[in-house]
């Protein structure tokens, strides 16, 4: 069922690509670099360099090379997240050493797209893929009329919780954020070494939470940008989270540190509200906690609702500097909508493709680590419930880099998250205007 759906999808996609490719041929013939028809380019062969930190990209490249004799793909781990963006900016500024394809997180994608560093792949066949991906990731790779990459994975959020800890203290798993605060108090009172979660101020988490609360602090229309952290969603998050921070109910531990892994392992961090890609990290990072953790839907702002948001996740994009965009696109489509998806799934990744998220095989998978729970049911449901209309800033990488100087202060000093958000807003507006955007 799944396999056949996927092949049909792929076939239609390819047919579309061929038509669009022929069209693109006339449009981009002047740019040189051989043919602009992805399929023809793949047959002709060539060399590609891919910058990606995701471990599944390497096997995908190998599978692609096996299917296409003349193609050589070099996968380079040029650093993770920010490190890679800096390297990419440097390479683009220097005008040499730019890869053909790069893995870019959704929050950072607008920055590169608007800087005209990424190629618009809609003419190469991406326009035909409408409906292939879940709405969150799909809208994240679009800027205005262009499509600047294809989703590799997605991170619809869910509540990961340590069931053993909750059971031991007889506390219910919270379904609303108010209940979450109550649970935080109860847990910490029952055992002062237990915190409901960890947080030292994380831009990605904060924006995702505001996203779920229906806030839309960023509106972007070309170079006209509005930043406003006083809307209802932002306020709801700021006020709720302020209680947790003020009462010292969140562990002052930064995510991804070794202390964090330790907390996840020994039960002192009881929950994580995080993207659907997390199970793989649980399995490799805290193998000892196997059986303790479960997945529940994300707590809600209003009882009975089912809103979620995306947290993390990345796309892969063809760079404007690439000399063989057609071939690069062919590989990109293979990786994100073709056979590459299954390789990613086998490697523990979470898909962004609708067909896979709806497949019986995927949904019925029982996770041994999570005590036999069919976690994909929860996670896939979350992918369908993502609140639409969210936008990131075209300079989100910078904005996130100053998060800890502004909002982060609320975690270490007397300022509130609301004040911090106001500071963040001011600093982002100033920077945006300095960069030539019209921001208010």
């Amino acid at each position: 069922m799944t396999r056949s759906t996927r092949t049909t999808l792929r076939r239609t996609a390819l047919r579309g690509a061929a038509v669009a490719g022929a069209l693109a041929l006339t449009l981009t013939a002047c740019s040189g670099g051989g043919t602009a028809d992805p399929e023809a380019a793949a047959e002709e062969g060539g060399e590609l360099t891919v910058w990606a930190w995701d471990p599944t990209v390497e096997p995908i490249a190998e599978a692609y090379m096996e299917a296409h004799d003349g193609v050589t793909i070099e996968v380079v781990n040029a650093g993770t997240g920010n490190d890679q963006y800096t390297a990419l900016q440097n390479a683009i500024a220097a005008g040499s050493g730019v890869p053909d394809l790069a893995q870019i997180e959704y929050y950072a994608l607008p920055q590169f797209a608007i800087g005209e560093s990424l190629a618009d792949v809609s003419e190469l066949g991406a326009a035909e893929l409408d409906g292939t991906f879940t709405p969150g990731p799909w809208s994240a790779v679009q800027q205005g009329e262009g499509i600047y990459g294809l989703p590799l994975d997605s991170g619809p959020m869910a509540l990961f919780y340590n069931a053993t800890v909750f059971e031991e203290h007889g506390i219910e798993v919270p379904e609303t954020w108010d209940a979450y605060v109550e649970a935080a108090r109860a847990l910490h009172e029952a055992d002062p070494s237990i915190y409901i979660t960890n947080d030292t101020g994380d831009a990605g988490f904060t924006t995702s939470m505001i996203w779920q609360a229906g806030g839309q602090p960023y509106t972007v229309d070309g170079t006209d940008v509005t930043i406003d952290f006083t809307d209802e969603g932002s306020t709801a998050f700021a006020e709720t989270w302020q209680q947790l921070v003020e009462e010292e109910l969140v562990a002052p531990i930064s995510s991804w540190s070794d202390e964090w892994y330790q907390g996840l392992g020994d039960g002192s961090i009881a929950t994580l509200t995080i993207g659907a890609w997390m199970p793989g990290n649980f399995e490799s990072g805290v193998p000892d906690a196997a059986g303790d953790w479960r997945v529940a839907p994300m707590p809600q702002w209003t009882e009975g609702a089912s809103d979620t948001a995306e947290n993390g996740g990345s796309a892969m994009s063809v760079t404007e500097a690439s000399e063989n965009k057609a071939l690069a696109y062919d590989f990109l489509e293979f990786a994100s909508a073709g056979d590459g998806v299954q390789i990613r799934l086998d490697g523990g990744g979470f898909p962004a493709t609708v067909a896979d998220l709806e497949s019986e095989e995927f949904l019925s998978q029982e996770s041994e680590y999570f005590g036999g729970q069919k976690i994909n049911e929860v996670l896939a449901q979350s992918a369908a419930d993502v609140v639409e209309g969210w936008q990131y800033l075209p300079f989100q990488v910078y904005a996130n880099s100053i998060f800890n100087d502004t909002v982060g202060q609320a975690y270490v000093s007397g300022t509130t998250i609301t004040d911090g958000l106001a500071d963040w807003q001011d600093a982002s507006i100033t920077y945006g205007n300095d960069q030539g955007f019209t921001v208010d």
Partner: protein
Amino acid sequence: MTTTTVTPRRSTGPRLRRARGFSADRPRRSPLLTVLTGIVLVYSLLPLAWLLVNATKTQADLFSSFGLWFGDSFALFSNIGQTLTYDDGIFVRWFANTLLYVVLGAGGATALAVLGGYGLAKFDFPGKKGVFATVIGAVAVPGTALAVPTFLMFSQMGLTNTPWSVIIPSLISPFGLYLMWTFAAEAIPTELLEAARMDGAGEARTFAQICLPLLAPGIVTVLLFTMVATWNNYFLPLIMLKDPDWYPLTLGLNAWNAQAATAGGEAIFNLVITGAVLTIVPLVVAFLFLQRYWQSGLAAGSVKE
């Protein structure tokens, strides 16, 4: 009467000397200093002890056992094995890269510093003051500040992402040059050079056979400094290199560490820690072996004889 006055004088003699005269042979004991030194000693050895202890733990043990004592398992050897073989043995490759950068970079930097320092100390030429000012100025500029301009320049020359982009900037060591300069000025008596010239030795021969042995302690000092700098070099390779195949150990270990912070990445803290132990071993060995040359070099020129 006389005998009674003599005896106490004899007995107070040493006590007086102990209270008054503190020579290098008889240092005064200060509890405060002892405590301070003790604290500094613990402060510097504790991380090392932590590193060694934790290199014996598995990934799971790392998070469930006390940091400064051994866990349930003793996994040192399996950790070392895994470190050397993980990801097709890329660690060994990084190790070889670092060695390459140290041999060519630090070795070259030392050679240049010795030649330059000797020339500046023992020959007079116009513009010497200008060179002096440039070198002193260059010591004050941190290499980090030059990394990005260097990257843009190297990128134009097509040298980025090659080992040369790490080796060439490492060749320049203003501090080493300055050190060799002052060292050569003190360690090589000008009369000796004159005598050698009088006996008919050419400049090259004078340098190789007479000056080099005299400069040995200084050379070792500079070599150690440049070696440590190149071995620990992080920012320059970070900017220059994109291909993990050319990473030095510092970048490689960081990449391994960063792996724990990505979706889908495997947390391998045990290998990062074991890798860090393996990384410092060569430096420790180098220090132990070169220590005596180094120590004698530090004091050279400090006392006029």
